[in-house]
């Protein structure tokens, strides 16, 4: 075990896109940094830089690819404007459940496709899945949704492909920054907003100002974060260092997912005790949302070959998985009928 000590120790700066205190979304970055340091005995050191301290969140990919920083930890969907296919790896409306997405990523060729997607657009990065969280909520609403008509003229903050779906349904969609949401909801500048999962939403205090927290999070059944590593830095690492990083990220994925799952129930129950209506979006509306989502995804697929390839691979897996998914799990409401 002495020979590896001769290898260059790794000392990487790692800017992140979400505060590391945010459960599931940001916390895995700190887990990775701590575990790598401990497991390598100080041979692999990664220093986390909170959002905005070094690299603005939207530019993490570019900065890593340019080698300005060796690594980054981010929600890669931010780079949709540069790499059209990345949303499929970050959050897909009516997409897979978190563990099913991980299955596709680890076993269904997802990991390799992601490397190709980046390389095809000229990015010099190695990407590794390093965190998944469960569904977001469908958002916070001042009024319940009872029909598809309710989306017409609704002023809603909605990010990503889901936002495009709602625009198609006649909603007035904005992307206003997180900082303005609380007040905008309070004054009625917007009627609704999506943000994240309950354990995170509670920090923004949405439950203080509107009472309808709707489910399921059709627009984001899973949300994945990745560790992006400059390709040259990655190639320069020893096999031992590489194995350590990959193993740690795989562990971080599990830790992040379970952290959110562990906390959300309690938070949601707490919301309900404060008078929040945690309602389901009616099924017929979900069906229609899914239809429009398929249209939107199809449009994206026609614009970008990588998007098409990845989307088809995911759909194929989703179809094959369905028969198992539908029957294998216990119904969540089992035992509730008294």
């Amino acid at each position, binding site marked *: 075990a002495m020979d590896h000590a001769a290898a260059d120790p790794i000392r990487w700066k790692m800017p992140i896109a979400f505060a590391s205190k945010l459960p599931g979304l940001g916390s895995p970055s700190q887990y990775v940094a701590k575990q790598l340091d401990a497991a390598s005995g100080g041979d692999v050191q990664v220093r986390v830089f909170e959002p905005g301290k070094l690299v603005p969140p*939207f530019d993490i990919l*570019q900065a890593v690819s*340019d080698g300005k920083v060796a690594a980054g930890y981010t929600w890669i*969907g*931010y*780079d*949709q*404007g*540069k*790499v059209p296919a990345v949303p499929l790896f970050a959050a897909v409306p009516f997409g897979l459940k978190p563990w099913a997405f991980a299955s596709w990523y680890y076993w269904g060729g997802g990991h390799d496709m992601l490397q190709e997607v980046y390389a095809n*657009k*000229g990015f010099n990065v190695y990407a590794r899945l390093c965190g998944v969280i469960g569904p977001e909520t469908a958002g916070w609403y001042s009024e319940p949704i009872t029909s598809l008509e309710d989306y*017409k*003229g609704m*002023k809603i903050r909605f*990010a*990503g*492909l889901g*936002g*495009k779906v709602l*625009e198609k349904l*006649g*909603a*007035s*969609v*904005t*992307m*206003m920054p997180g900082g303005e949401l609380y007040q905008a909801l309070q004054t009625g500048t917007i009627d609704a907003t999506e943000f994240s999962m309950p354990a995170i939403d509670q920090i923004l205090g949405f439950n203080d100002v509107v009472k309808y927290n709707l489910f399921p999070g059709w627009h984001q059944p899973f949300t994945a974060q990745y560790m992006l590593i400059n390709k040259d830095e990655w190639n320069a690492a020893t096999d031992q260092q590489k194995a350590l990083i990959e193993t740690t990220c795989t562990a971080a994925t599990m830790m992040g997912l379970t952290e959110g799952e562990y906390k959300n129930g309690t938070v949601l129950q707490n919301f309900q005790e404060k008078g929040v209506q945690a309602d389901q979006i009616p099924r017929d509306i979900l069906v229609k949302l899914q239809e429009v989502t398929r249209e*939107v995804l199809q449009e*994206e697929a026609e614009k970008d070959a990588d998007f098409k390839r990845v989307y088809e691979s995911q759909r194929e897996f989703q179809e094959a998985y369905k028969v198992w998914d539908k029957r294998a799990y216990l119904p969540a409401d089992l035992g509730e009928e008294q």
Partner: protein
Amino acid sequence: MSEQQDPSTPPPHGGVPAHHTEFPSNPISGAIDTVIDRVGFLFSWLWVVVVGVILYAVIGRYAFGQGSVMLEEIEWHLAGAAWLIGLSYTLVSDDHVRVDVLHEHFSLRTQAWVEMLGLLLLLIPFLIIAQDSMIPYFWSSFLQGEESQAPAGLPARWALKFFLPLAFGLLLLAALSRLLKCTTLLFGWPRPRRQDNTR
């Protein structure tokens, strides 16, 4: 002390008076300043456009219930272009804020020395370093054909990123113009314009 003014007359200089030292101009500085002054003035009209877009967004949301992701992006695209270009415009009109505690007691020549050394040792190196990251930053965005990260947003995000190297290029020109004004005062080179009427 304070001039008595008819309240019906607006104060001069658009409410904000000129509060700076005038260095003598020379033909090169004069030409640079004229160009930057015109470009800056042209881009100043964007503020009216931004006001218009905001009104349209606010009214549109209520009158027609239409989406505003694109309008929001237009707002900050226009504002961003305007203030980036404004950086050099403001340097030419010498409106960047100074701590004048000691400065105001300096003689004109001392002020010119401070200005020249400041430009040579602080601002110009900074601008060159800035270009070193801005040109590749724009260029990679252009090659990637970068668009908005919002599916309903604007295309050609790279076009706005072009304003980074452009604005800092103009800033470099403006700094050069100011530098030459200092050398005109201190060393008589380039020769001053006979009739100095830059402002």
